[in-house]
Structures are given as structure tokens and as C-alpha cells.
């Protein structure tokens, strides 16, 4: 009896003495040792962590069949059976690296990501509003990146030898028509939307995904924010107007709504910044928007965004064909935009994104010849002069429905496919000097299907392969566009990417309606990129070649309107681009440099031959510097944009040859512009401030450097006049307040 008891007591002691040593080495399967791996005898305390050489060793008193687990972040966890007897065990374990977002190569050829979260982002969401040359305009910030042109006389992004109409803008997947306020001659307009509406932006200067189409050169993909971080009210006052809004986040943080209204009147802005043109109707804008957002049970989102705006402007300038007359241009615009987007997790790694958008646009344009007393001059004989008196009414509506399904296939591999339907109806009525009216209507139904797959072969090698099939009812044509990009990561974490794709686009509305039998215009992109990102520095070098075929050629119709006549246009663009951003070298200083070299020629529209288009400079460079001085609670931003001169032409109609020829040509002076802005945030650090205030001072073209964008010619081509910015400098002063960050939040919550 006593012996039994003694045995029982001694049992644990005995097992301690009979320990077995388990040791081994861990590699990644390619012979590289893996450090920090946790090795565990399942359901026991026994185990070890591998050292820098991948070695591990531990002792155990367990016996019999056990499971040995090995795990570390970034590798597939392993379990293996282990029979523990009396002798020591030696193991060599090969683990398989998981393909994870943190480690995997990023397919980045042709694209710049602005986001706070996404890996591989080049800009943050805030960069878009703190880049001084951008003036808080969503697209303008991208003009400080390589690939874009410093075109000041009209809006839009001119990318890699492409015209502005070759760049399309998408909001939550849906194409946004009339993203910019309606064009005015010689003065670039701004984007309609508030930059704070977006949490992430992808600017593609080529080779973009098969999910998007109808842009020969570039896609700007904007993603609106989900739920706001808190309930707050905003109020802004500046030299260009006033605005305010409210965002209400529900108590359970699952839904939100918001409304805002902005009124802009440039009276004060123009008083401070003298304009070249004589504005008899100071630009006035009313703009309102509303949003509604819900988080669904399975973590999806339903978002509604609605927008309405109206604006008017009228200005006169000297008429180029006469000494005494003036040209007066007036525009009134009404624009609405509605977008509903639903993103849902369907389970089993399926995800759905669907969206519907509807927008309308109405322009009323009046152009008049006026005398020195600003009285309309009526001209009855049908000379070119007479055509300067006209009225144009445009009315358009657009609807889009889009559906995308995505399935995650393990790791980062995914397949997505879907379709989109786009309806457009554009009507115009053109009233000539003699009162005769020409009405035209163009409708199109575009149907597209697309599919794309992300293939991650290892963390170091990935490809995105996709294709898009489009049908346009207007052209009665199909097109099929393959898109491929491949990325490879080197040992030092730098990476190389390659992208290829075909891109198709319909003719611009203003060259329609047109002859039958037109086809899509087409561009092929080839892009090669090298990128290195580490601890606050980004270096990126990109070379590209772009081949245009089937570009639209135009000719004058009987009413004097230019219409598309055939697809005989062609062109090419090639270049080299550089981007370097550094947040590290200088303390609290963040700067980036971009440089683009562009060589391009094309024959399109009414060009007599293949020439470098007037929107393409050979060399473009930008420098942006930002510094926050903590003790002053102030951020200083500076940007310098440079471009070599751009060509300009006068096309004269040669009756003998029966076609246009180059009557005169030249090159503008180099473009230089330095802009500066200061953001003062006095509220930083205040205990429970009632309002958080940001003061903004911005000056464009601080040094008052002469800028010439292009030249306008008179009808005979005998005289030319420089197209210059409306004012030498533009000084902006504003004050923006948000309420409800700290205690006032409760007050706001209780009153809503």
C-alpha cells in the first residue's frame, strides 16, 4: 500500500526526468531560414521560438502521439503528428509563405493611389487639399504628378499626349459626366465636387483596369467615404463665397446623413484679383448636396449621394478680328447628379458591388459681338463675323447601372466580373445670327461586360489579367479590350511592373451627329515601371509608349459645325517619367518632385498632318514642399510647376488644295508658376474648443511670372493674341470651421 502511494507521488517526478528534446530548423521552403516562428506541442505549454538562424529546441515530458504546430505571421500555419518516445527528435520544417497584402507586390504600373489606408499609396487624402497649386480642386492635385500637362486655358487632365476628353472620371465605379463646371473660353473651370467627399483616389495615367472603359488615356477613380468619423457641423467663409453643412452619425455608428450648401460669388475675389476679362456677370454658384449612408448587417455599405448646382457667368473680351468690337460670352448651367451604391458581402468570399447613377446637365450659352458701348452688333451678311452671334442650348441626361461580382480565391487571388449599361441622351439647339435654328439629338446605349482576375503566384510575382467587351448602339460596333499587368518584387523590396492594354472611346458629343460607319477610336498602352518605397521615401520611374489608331477626323458641315467624318486619325506618344517623394530626410518636411518627358505627335480632328498637339509640352516638372511648424500651429505649402513651351498653330483653309494647311506655328514661352499656401490651425491643443478653425491663405503665381498658354488667331491668320490667365495672381483667403469635435458634439447630438 505504501509502495503504491510512493509510486503515485513519485510519478510526476519520474516523468520530469524522462524528458525528450525536440529540436530542429525552420526554412521558408526555398532554403531561407525563418526566425520568430512559434513551435508548439498542441494543448501543452511546451514549445519554442526559432532564432535568427531558424533553429529551435525544447524539452518535453509528454509521451505518445502529439501534434506539433508551427506558426508565424505571414506563413501558412502547419500541424504535424509527432510520436514522442524516449529518444530525442530532430525536425526540419519547411513553411509556406502566405500571400498577404502586407508582403505582396503591388501592381502599380500607370497608377497613383491617394489614400490613407491602401498600401502603395503615393499621396494621402489630405495631400489633395494641401497642394497649393491645386486650390482645393480634386483633379488639380494630380497635375503635380508625372504624366500630366500644365494646361491652364481649359479644365481636365491632359495625360501623356492625350486630350482632356481622353481622361474619364468615375465615382464609386460610375462614370461622372460634367465632372467640371461647364467650359468657358480661355478660362479653366473647377471640378464640381468637394475633395473631402472622397477617401481614396486612383489616378491612372495609363494601363488601367478592365472594370473601366471609354477613356483613351487616363482614368481617375474616386471612392467616396463610408461613414463620417463623428457628427459635426461645418461653416466656411472665403473670398469666393460661403458654405455650410452638417454630418450626423447615428448613435450606433451604423448610419449617417449629411447635407451641405455652398454659395459662391466671385465679386470679392475679383475685386482683390483684377481680371483681364470684363465680367458683366460675376460668376455666381449655388450648390447643394445630400448623402445617406448605411452599414448593412454583413458589413456592406449602402450609400446615396445627390448633388444639384446652378451657376452663371458672363464676360466680354476684345474681339480678335476687329479693333473696336468685343466678344461677349454668357453661360448658365444647371446640373444634377444622383448616385446609389451598394456593396455587400454575400458570404463564401463573394462580394457584390452595384450602383445606379443618374445625372442631368443643361447649358444656355449666348455669344454676342458688341460695340464699345456694349451693344449687340447684328451682322446679316453670312460672313465669319456673322457666326459670332449665336445661342446654344444643350440638354443632356445620363443614366448608368453597374454590377460587379468578386470572389476571393484564397490569398490575394480574386476574380471579378460584371457588366455596365450606360445611357446618354444629348440634345442641342443652335440658333444662328439670322434666327435660324438647328436642333440635334444624339442618344447612345453602351453595354459592356468585363472580367478580371488577380493572380498572385508568390508574394513577389503577381498579375492582373482582364478583358472588356463593349457595344455602342450609336456606332453599331463592338470592341474588345484586353488588359494585362504584371508586377515583380525584388529582394530589396523594390519592384518592377509592366502593363499593356487596349482602350476604346466614342466620339465627343460636340462632333456628333455624324456620318454613319464611324468606329471607336483606339489606343494601345505599353508601360514599364520601377518603384522603390521604404520608410518615408518613394522613388518611381516609368517609361511608356502609346499608339493611337482610328482617331476621329473632322470637317465642316453645312451649318459651319465641325463634325466627325472618319477614323483616319492616328498618333503616338512616348516618354519617361520620374517621381520622388521624401518625408524623411528633412525633419517635418515632406516634398515631392515629378518630371515628365513627352514625345508625341498625332493627326486628328482638323489637323492637316501629324503634329505635336498644342496641349503637349516636351518637359514638365513639379515640386511640392510641405512643412508643419508645430510651435506656430501652421502648415506651409509651396509648389512650383514648370513646363517647356507648347506648340501653337493656325490652321488655314487652302481653297486650291481643298483642305487645311498650317498657316502659322510657333511655341509659347516656358511655363513657370509658384504657388504658396498657409494653413493656420489655432484650435490645435485647445481644451474642449467650441469650434475647430482652419485659416487658409493661398497665392497662385506668387512671383507674377508671365504665363502664355497658347495663341488665338484672327480669321485671316494675320494676327495672334496670347491666351493668358485671367489674372496674374490669385489670392485666396478663407476660414473654415467645424463644430462638434469635443464637448460640443454632445450639444449637437442632443439638438438633432
Amino acid at each position, binding site marked *: *500500500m505504501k509502495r*503504491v502511494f510512493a509510486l*503515485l507521488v513519485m*510519478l*510526476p517526478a519520474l516523468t520530469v526526468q524522462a524528458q525528450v528534446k525536440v529540436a530542429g530548423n525552420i526554412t521558408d521552403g526555398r532554403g531561407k531560414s525563418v526566425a*520568430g516562428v*512559434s513551435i*508548439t506541442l*498542441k*494543448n*501543452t*505549454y*511546451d*514549445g519554442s*521560438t526559432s532564432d535568427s538562424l531558424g533553429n529551435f529546441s525544447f524539452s518535453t515530458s509528454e509521451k505518445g502521439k502529439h501534434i506539433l504546430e508551427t506558426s508565424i*505571421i*505571414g506563413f501558412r500555419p502547419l500541424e504535424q503528428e509527432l510520436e514522442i518516445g524516449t529518444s530525442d527528435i530532430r525536425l526540419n520544417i519547411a513553411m509556406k509563405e502566405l500571400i*498577404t497584402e*502586407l508582403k505582396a507586390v503591388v501592381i502599380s504600373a500607370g497608377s497613383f493611389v491617394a489614400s*490613407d489606408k491602401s498600401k502603395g499609396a503615393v499621396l*494621402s*487624402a*489630405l495631400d489633395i487639399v494641401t497642394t497649393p497649386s491645386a486650390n482645393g480642386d480634386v483633379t488639380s492635385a494630380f497635375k503635380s504628378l508625372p504624366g500630366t500637362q500644365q494646361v491652364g486655358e481649359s479644365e481636365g487632365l491632359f495625360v501623356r499626349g492625350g486630350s482632356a476628353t481622353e481622361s474619364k472620371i468615375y465615382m464609386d465605379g460610375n462614370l461622372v459626366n460634367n465632372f467640371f463646371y461647364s467650359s468657358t473660353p480661355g478660362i479653366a473651370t473647377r471640378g464640381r465636387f468637394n475633395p473631402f467627399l472622397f477617401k481614396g483616389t486612383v489616378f491612372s495615367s495609363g494601363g488601367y483596369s478592365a472594370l473601366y472603359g471609354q477613356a483613351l488615356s487616363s482614368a481617375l477613380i474616386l471612392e467616396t467615404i463610408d461613414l463620417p*468619423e*463623428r457628427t459635426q457641423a461645418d461653416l466656411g467663409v472665403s473670398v469666393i463665397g460661403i458654405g455650410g453643412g452638417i454630418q450626423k452619425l447615428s448613435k450606433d455608428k451604423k448610419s449617417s446623413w449629411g447635407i451641405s450648401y455652398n454659395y459662391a460669388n466671385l465679386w470679392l475675389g475679383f475685386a482683390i484679383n483684377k481680371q483681364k476679362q470684363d465680367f458683366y456677370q460675376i460668376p455666381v454658384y449655388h450648390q447643394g448636396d445630400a448623402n445617406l449612408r448605411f452599414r448593412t448587417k454583413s458589413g456592406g455599405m449602402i450609400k446615396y449621394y445627390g448633388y444639384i448646382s446652378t451657376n452663371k457667368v458672363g464676360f466680354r473680351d476684345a474681339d480678335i478680328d476687329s479693333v473696336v468690337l468685343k466678344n461677349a460670352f454668357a453661360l448658365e448651367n444647371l446640373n444634377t447628379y444622383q448616385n446609389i451604391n451598394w456593396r455587400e458581402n454575400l458570404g463564401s468570399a463573394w462580394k457584390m458591388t452595384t450602383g445606379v447613377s443618374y445625372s442631368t446637365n443643361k447649358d444656355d450659352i449666348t455669344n454676342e459681338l458688341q460695340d464699345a458701348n456694349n451693344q449687340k452688333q447684328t451682322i446679316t451678311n453670312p460672313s465669319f463675323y456673322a457666326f459670332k452671334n449665336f445661342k446654344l442650348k444643350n440638354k443632356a441626361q445620363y443614366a448608368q447601372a453597374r454590377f460587379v461580382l468578386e470572389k476571393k480565391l484564397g490569398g490575394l487571388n480574386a476574380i471579378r466580373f460584371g457588366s455596365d449599361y450606360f445611357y446618354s441622351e444629348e440634345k442641342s439647339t443652335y440658333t444662328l445670327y439670322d434666327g435660324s435654328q438647328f436642333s440635334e439629338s444624339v442618344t447612345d446605349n453602351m453595354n459592356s461586360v468585363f472580367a478580371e482576375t488577380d493572380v498572385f503566384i508568390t508574394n513577389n510575382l503577381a498579375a492582373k489579367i482582364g478583358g472588356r467587351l463593349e457595344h455602342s448602339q450609336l456606332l453599331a460596333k463592338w470592341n474588345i479590350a484586353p488588359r494585362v499587368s504584371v508586377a515583380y518584387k525584388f529582394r530589396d523590396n523594390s519592384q518592377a511592373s509592366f502593363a499593356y492594354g487596349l482602350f476604346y472611346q466614342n466620339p465627343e458629343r460636340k462632333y456628333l451627329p455624324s456620318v454613319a460607319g464611324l468606329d471607336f477610336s483606339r489606343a494601345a498602352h505599353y508601360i514599364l515601371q520601377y518603384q522603390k518605397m*521604404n*520608410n518615408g521615401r518613394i522613388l518611381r520611374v516609368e517609361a511608356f509608349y502609346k499608339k493611337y489608331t482610328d482617331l476621329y477626323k473632322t470637317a465642316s458641315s453645312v451649318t459651319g459645325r465641325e463634325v466627325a467624318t472618319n477614323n483616319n486619325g492616328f498618333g503616338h506618344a512616348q516618354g519617361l517619367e520620374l517621381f520622388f517623394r521624401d518625408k524623411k530626410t528633412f525633419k517635418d518636411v515632406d516634398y515631392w518632385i515629378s518630371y515628365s518627358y513627352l514625345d508625341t505627335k498625332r493627326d486628328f480632328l482638323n489637323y492637316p498632318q501629324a503634329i505635336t498637339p498644342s496641349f503637349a509640352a516636351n518637359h514638365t516638372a513639379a515640386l511640392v514642399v510641405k512643412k*508643419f511648424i*508645430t*510651435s506656430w*500651429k501652421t502648415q506651409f505649402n509651396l509648389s512650383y510647376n514648370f513646363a517647356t513651351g507648347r506648340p501653337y498653330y493656325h490652321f488655314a483653309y487652302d481653297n486650291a488644295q481643298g483642305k487645311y494647311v498650317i498657316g502659322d506655328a510657333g511655341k509659347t514661352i516656358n511655363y513657370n508658376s509658384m504657388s504658396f499656401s498657409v494653413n493656420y490651425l489655432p484650435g*490645435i*491643443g*485647445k*481644451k474642449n474648443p467650441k469650434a475647430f478653425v482652419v485659416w487658409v491663405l493661398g497665392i497662385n503665381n506668387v512671383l507674377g511670372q508671365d504665363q502664355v498658354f497658347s495663341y488665338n488667331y484672327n480669321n485671316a491668320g494675320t494676327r495672334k493674341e496670347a491666351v493668358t490667365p485671367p489674372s496674374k495672381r490669385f489670392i485666396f483667403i478663407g476660414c473654415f470651421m467645424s463644430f462638434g469635435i469635443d464637448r460640443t458634439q454632445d450639444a449637437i447630438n442632443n439638438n438633432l
Partner: protein
Amino acid sequence: MKKLFLMVAIASFTTAAFAQSEKYMAAMKSNINAIDTSFKNPQNLLTLANQFERIGNAEKTQWLPFYYAALCQVNYTYMEQDKSKIDGIADKATELIDKADALQPKNSEISCIKSMIASAHMMVDPMTRFMEYGMESQTFIDDAMQQDPTNPRPEYLKGQGLKYTPEQFGGGCGTAKPVLQSSLDKYGVFKPASELHPNWGRERTEMLIGECK
């Protein structure tokens, strides 16, 4: 004889159970004691985190091993020089603290770790991440204070955050010191529920107050 056998069976069962809990106590104690010295060699923090995780997985019902595993992981992120690695480790810490949270919901100590994890994410890129993770970190500290007003650690974390925030942003010793002092007062009376329960931070609080003299 049958009786004897039963007795032996019961005895061996209870000793086994007793041995098990003794083993748990011993393993936890030695690992907890090792945390302080591990700060000199951050790699040891990961080794310790792995050991705590092993204990947690073996025990299944104890929240403390997962709590300490997460604590070691998040402390490691503060030492990691390569910022690109921090998010991954912080995510691992989240995975561990979520396990602790499932076993012991609404715990003040667990909220403290969650706040520390949010701060780790924020430090990867403070300028752009402050809005999201800075707020999240603050929210968890508030939760921790509410869940146990006697716990000195939420105020220690808050005071530490304030001390390292520039004065212009509402930080610095001026605002940090009263918070740290209040934390120290609580350390004076704080009694951990057992010798395994969290009982750290007092020395650092004293040190921080010392630096604010």
C-alpha cells in the same frame, strides 16, 4: 481494494488537477516576471508572447495568457524600427486580445491593450492616421476608465500619450502631470485580483512624473 482503487483514482485525479493549476501558476509567474527584463532585447518579447499564447491555447478558459501575449506583442511594436512591420504585429496582438476579450468581456485591462494597439497603428504614420487611430485609442482609454475607475493603467496610458504630444497640440508635461499623478495615486491603492493579474506600469508612471519635475 476497490475502495483503495477509488481513493487512488480520486487522489491522482485531484493531484493531477492541482498539478495542472500549479503548473499554470508557475509558468505564468515565471513568464510574467520575464516581461520586464525582455525590454532590453525586444526579440525576447516575441518569444514570451509565443509562450503566453501556448499557455492560453492549452488552458482554453484563461484570459490572462492571451492578455499577456497581446501585451508582449504590442510592446514589441513600440520597439520595432521598421515601420512597415508594425501593422502586421499589431494585427497579431488584436487577434490575441480578441481571444482574451471573448473569455472576459468588458474588462478594463483588455480595453487598455486595445488602446495601445490603436496607438501602435497610429505611429506608423501619425500625420495621416491620427484622425482614425488617435480617436480609437482615446475611445478605448475612456472605456477602460469606465469599466474600472480604480484601474491606474488607463490614466497612465493617457498621461504618457499627453506627455509625448507637443505642447502646441495640447500635450506636454503641463497637461500630462495631473493625469499621471492621479494614476500614481491609484497605483498606491490598487490591488490586483491575484498575483497573475495585471500589475504593471507604476515604475514608468513614476519615471514620467520624474521627467516632468
